[in-house]
């Protein structure tokens, strides 16, 4: 009970009574009371709503309520605390009734004192509190049982006193239907005895709890399995049983399925041929199947449990496995299908397995061991090895056949076989013996072995009457000679090499006769397998066609030698004929092409390549048309077509294209080849030179026309006038006309001289005079001759001669002609009053001063490399005349070319400069020009200075 004040509501209409009770409460020493007085039930209820009242003291006789109504009215208010009824002396029975209705206690007015009142109130509060707790506990229990999925029941005397909804649902009854029912009525008849016994044991006190499974019987008589946890309580002095019951039908089914699965798995594990085992983290076997047990010669799997690899396998192998498995469990990486060889310790047998090991983990992902599955693949492995061996044998066989078929040399074939047999059958050495026809014996002809183990090539192996030979002839299979049978073959023993223990002789037969014997030697006793014997036989059989072919070839070769000589002679003749034709084609100056179909180039001779600038065969299969400018192609195609159709040779002139894109004039002859393949032979001649000659001829004619016909016409007219009208002309006029005619005749004479000079030069055909000429002296002669003309035009003619070696090899007249033409030109093309500078340098190195007048630097870059070396005599003629237009420069030195001068009054032949250059070149010199149109022209020529004997080079 708390120590705070107890709040009392006193409902009492009699204020005297109320006062009295109030006093008693205040007098109480043990407890502090706080009293509120209400004079009516309504007033009292109002107080309850607002105040924290701990206890109500209630007078039943109130103005607004009376008797037991009052207690009802008070309890309806929802007040949970204790209500103590106050009654009059005469109403004591009413007090009892009030308690039955829910009041906590009652007091009879007048019999109450302070102590009693205090105790009653405090007890009432205490009791009410306990009552409250009980009620709440009851409510909790009820809620639990009502909502529990487990069935809960209370039974006494074999009858259900209480069942919860879950239990009723299990048995398909309502709760009401079950209460009062005999317990054993809802139990399967077979289980009733057991249930009764269990009840009895508890009732008798033998035990307090039981735990068992029973089969329940539902209202519809269906059966289910239930697990019961039963207990005992004492209720109303009697032992009463309580219990919970769970429907375990589903759980049973699941457990059964699990068990079935486990059995199935076990059956599978125990019956499959694979070795299945589970190991713990320490490598101890915790599960193995029957196969493992059989393998280690254990009666059953249980005998193996708890053991490890170390109990069954060689130590080294076990350690290796242990390490591997520890690693596997550590990393969690499974090993799948690893091929391993396992050797069992107990019988030393070996087997090949395909091993798979997977880490085993518990629900938490922790590795707790490993599961291993080994599949025995020993037979597969053996089969594979067999196949591999057969494959290898076949490969060798194939190799031997293909190699031996490639050679036509008997020894070559045998060499291949010896080599392959030695390698395949691991013989120390293989030798091949050939029949010696003269002596009827087999001699070793070649061997294939270790070079460190030399053998006696050519030694006698066996004779034809040897028993070994007889054996080989009879059986055609290899003969094996070792310690067991060597006595039968005494000859063989003789020839066997030191240390050889076993030999195999394999006959190579051609058309029933032994041609060769192959001998395989072994140092150790050697057992041949059937496969090895078969292999040796098949190899030797395989090559016999090659050997036979080789022998035939050998004979044929010999027979054909003579024939070959004849063929070679004939071939040489043909080649010589071909060579002659090729020589003609390649040495003719005309380009010759062979065209195939579609006019594509099939062949071209050397002249073609040279003429067109292509590499040999560069144009193979190109159309002929590529050599012709596009707009000329039609002409060419027409000619080709005509040649085809008419079978008559065609000729035409066309510009053709050089590889560098430049066109040149060509004369083309096309002839169709009558070979039904449409071949055409085209011969091409470069006629550029001919055209050039024609052009020069035209120029000559034109020049002669103008330079000869016009002056002659003039002379004819002038002289005619003089003759006809002599009397009518003044003397002055006569003189003028005569002078004019004389001058024209002179010009004509010059012209004729120039033409004669150039004709003479041509007639000399490059032969030159070798007399010593002084260039300075030649200049002096020219100067004298020309000074008159220079004076006439008021030219300032300056001559500077820089002394040195003026001697050149040549002809005096030619050197004079050179000077004359150059100076004459300068004079002709320079207006009146102009200046003509002539300079001559003897054979010495020009000094810096020499460059000043006239200016040699104009020619820098165009002069010979050793120009300044003093090896040349150099002449320069410079004028400030009209100059030469740039377009005339390229042909300035061409014969009969006059360029822009042709249209002028200045007489000329177009021969002067060409003659100058041709003469200079004849004597190993040359000439270059520097000019500016309208400003002047400078010619610079040079000739090699003659070196006297003893001159410094």
């Amino acid at each position, binding site marked *: 009970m708390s120590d705070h004040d107890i709040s009392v509501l006193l409902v009492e209409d009699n204020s005297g009574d109320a006062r009295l009770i109030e006093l008693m409460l205040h007098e109480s020493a043990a407890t502090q009371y706080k009293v509120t007085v209400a004079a009516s039930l309504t007033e009292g209820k109002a107080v309850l709503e607002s105040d924290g009242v701990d206890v109500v003291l209630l007078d039943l006789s109130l103005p607004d309520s009376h008797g037991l109504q009052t207690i009802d009215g008070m309890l309806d208010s929802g007040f949970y605390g204790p209500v103590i009824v106050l009654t009059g002396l005469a109403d004591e029975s009413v007090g009892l009734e009030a308690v039955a209705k829910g009041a906590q206690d009652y007091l009879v007015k007048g019999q109450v004192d302070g102590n009693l009142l205090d105790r009653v109130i405090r007890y009432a509060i205490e009791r009410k509190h306990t009552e409250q707790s009980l009620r709440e506990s009851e409510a909790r229990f009820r809620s639990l049982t009502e909502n529990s999925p487990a069935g809960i029941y209370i039974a006494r005397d074999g009858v259900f006193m209480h069942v919860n909804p879950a239990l009723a649902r299990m048995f398909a009854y309502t709760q009401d239907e079950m209460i009062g029912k005999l317990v054993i009525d809802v139990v399967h008849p077979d289980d009733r005895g057991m249930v009764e016994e269990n009840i009895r044991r508890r009732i008798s006190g033998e035990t307090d709890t039981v735990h068992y499974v029973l089969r329940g019987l539902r209202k519809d008589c269906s059966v289910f399995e239930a697990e019961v946890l039963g207990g005992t309580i004492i209720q109303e002095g009697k032992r009463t049983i309580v219990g919970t019951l769970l429907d375990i039908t589903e759980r049973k089914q699941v457990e059964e399925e699990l068990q079935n699965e486990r059995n199935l798995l076990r059956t599978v594990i125990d019956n499959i041929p694979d070795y299945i085992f589970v190991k713990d983290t320490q490598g101890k076997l915790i599960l193995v199947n029957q196969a493992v047990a059989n393998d280690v010669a254990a009666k059953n799997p249980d005998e193996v449990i708890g053991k490890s690899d170390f109990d069954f396998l060689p130590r080294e192998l076990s350690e290796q496995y242990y390490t591997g498995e520890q690693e596997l469990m550590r990393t969690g990486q499974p090993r799948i299908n690893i091929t391993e060889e396992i050797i069992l310790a107990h019988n030393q047998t070996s087997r090949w397995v395909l091993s798979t090991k997977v880490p085993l983990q518990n629900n938490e992902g922790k590795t707790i061991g490993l599961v291993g599955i080994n599949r025995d693949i020993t037979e597969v492995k053996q089969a594979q090895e067999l196949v591999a061996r057969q494959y290898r044998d076949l490969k060798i066989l194939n190799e031997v056949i293909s190699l031996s078929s490639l050679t036509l040399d008997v020894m070559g074939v045998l060499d291949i076989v010896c080599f392959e047999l030695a390698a395949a059958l691991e013989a120390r050495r293989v030798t091949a013996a050939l029949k010696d026809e003269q002596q009827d014996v087999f001699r070793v002809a070649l061997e294939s072995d270790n070079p460190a183990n030399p053998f006696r090539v050519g030694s006698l192996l066996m004779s034809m009457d040897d028993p070994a030979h007889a054996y080989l002839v009879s059986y055609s299979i290899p003969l094996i000679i070792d310690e067991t049978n060597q006595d039968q073959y005494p000859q063989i023993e003789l020839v066997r090499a030191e240390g050889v223990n076993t030999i195999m002789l394999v006959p190579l037969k051609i058309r029933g006769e032994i041609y060769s014997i192959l001998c395989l030697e072994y140092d150790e006793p050697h057992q041949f397998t059937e496969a090895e014997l078969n292999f040796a036989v098949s190899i030797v059989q395989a090559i016999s066609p090659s050997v036979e072919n080789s022998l035939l070839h050998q004979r044929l070769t010999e027979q054909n030698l003579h024939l070959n000589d004849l063929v070679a002679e004939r071939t040489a003749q043909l080649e010589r004929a071909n060579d002659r034709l090729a020589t003609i084609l390649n040495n003719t100056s005309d380009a010759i092409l062979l065209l195939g179909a579609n006019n594509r180039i099939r062949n071209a001779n050397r002249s073609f390549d040279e003429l067109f600038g292509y590499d040999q065969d560069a144009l193979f299969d190109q159309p002929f048309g590529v050599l012709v400018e596009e707009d000329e192609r039609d002409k060419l195609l027409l000619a080709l077509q005509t040649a085809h159709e008419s079978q008559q040779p065609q000729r035409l002139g066309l510009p053709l294209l050089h590889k560098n894109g430049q066109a040149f004039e060509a004369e083309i002859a096309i002839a169709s080849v009558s070979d039904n393949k449409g071949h055409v032979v085209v011969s091409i001649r470069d006629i550029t030179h001919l055209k050039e000659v024609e052009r020069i001829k035209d120029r000559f004619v034109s020049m002669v026309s*103008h330079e000869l016909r016009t002056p002659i016409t003039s002379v*004819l*007219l002038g002289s005619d006038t003089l003759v006809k009208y002599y009397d009518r002309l003044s003397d002055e006029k006569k003189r003028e*006309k005569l002078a004019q005619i004389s*001058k024209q005749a002179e010009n004509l004479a010059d012209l004729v001289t120039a033409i004669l000079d150039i004709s003479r030069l041509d007639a000399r055909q490059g032969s030159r005079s070798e007399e010593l000429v002084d260039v300075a002296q030649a200049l002096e002669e020219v100067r004298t001759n020309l000074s008159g003309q220079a004076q006439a035009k008021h030219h300032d003619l300056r001559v500077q001669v820089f002394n040195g070696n003026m001697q050149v090899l040549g002809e005096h007249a030619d050197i004079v002609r050179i000077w004359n033409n150059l100076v004459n030109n300068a004079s002709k093309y320079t207006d009146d009053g102009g200046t003509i500078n002539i300079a001559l340098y003897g054979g010495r190195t020009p000094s810096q001063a020499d460059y000043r007048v006239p200016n040699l630097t104009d020619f820098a870059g165009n002069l010979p490399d050793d120009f300044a070396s003093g090896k040349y005599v150099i002449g320069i003629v410079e004028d400030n005349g009209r100059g030469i237009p740039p377009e005339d420069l390229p042909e300035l030195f061409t014969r009969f070319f006059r360029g822009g001068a042709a249209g002028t009054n200045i007489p000329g032949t177009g021969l002067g400069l060409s003659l100058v250059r041709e003469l200079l070149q004849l004597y190993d010199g040359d000439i270059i020009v520097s000019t500016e149109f309208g400003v002047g022209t400078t010619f610079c020529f040079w000739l090699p200075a003659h070196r006297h004997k003893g001159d410094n080079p």
Partner: protein
Amino acid sequence: MVVEDNIDLRDNLALQLELIGYEVVQAEDGQHALDVLEASEQPPDIILSDIAMPHIDGFQLLEQLRDNPAWQAIPFLFLTAYNSPDYVQHSEELQADGFILKPVKPDDLIMAIESKLDGT
């Protein structure tokens, strides 16, 4: 009119024709001839012209004359050193009245000129 770039020939032509009684106008090339024609009040009765001349040659001169109504009827004789078929053909195309090849005998030349003048 005598059109000729060779001064000696032109001079000799003019001299002989003048001595015969012609009035002679000289020109040293085609352009000069056109200038002289422009300047003179009366066109010449006949023109004797070289072909190969600087500036405007004989062909170009004839072409221009034939295009000009005032001059197109003047008889026109070529006196040339060039005997190529091309030249002859071209002069015919331009309807030259004669094609005289150098060298020509003076009598033949005078005859050719007079025959053309008689025809007009």
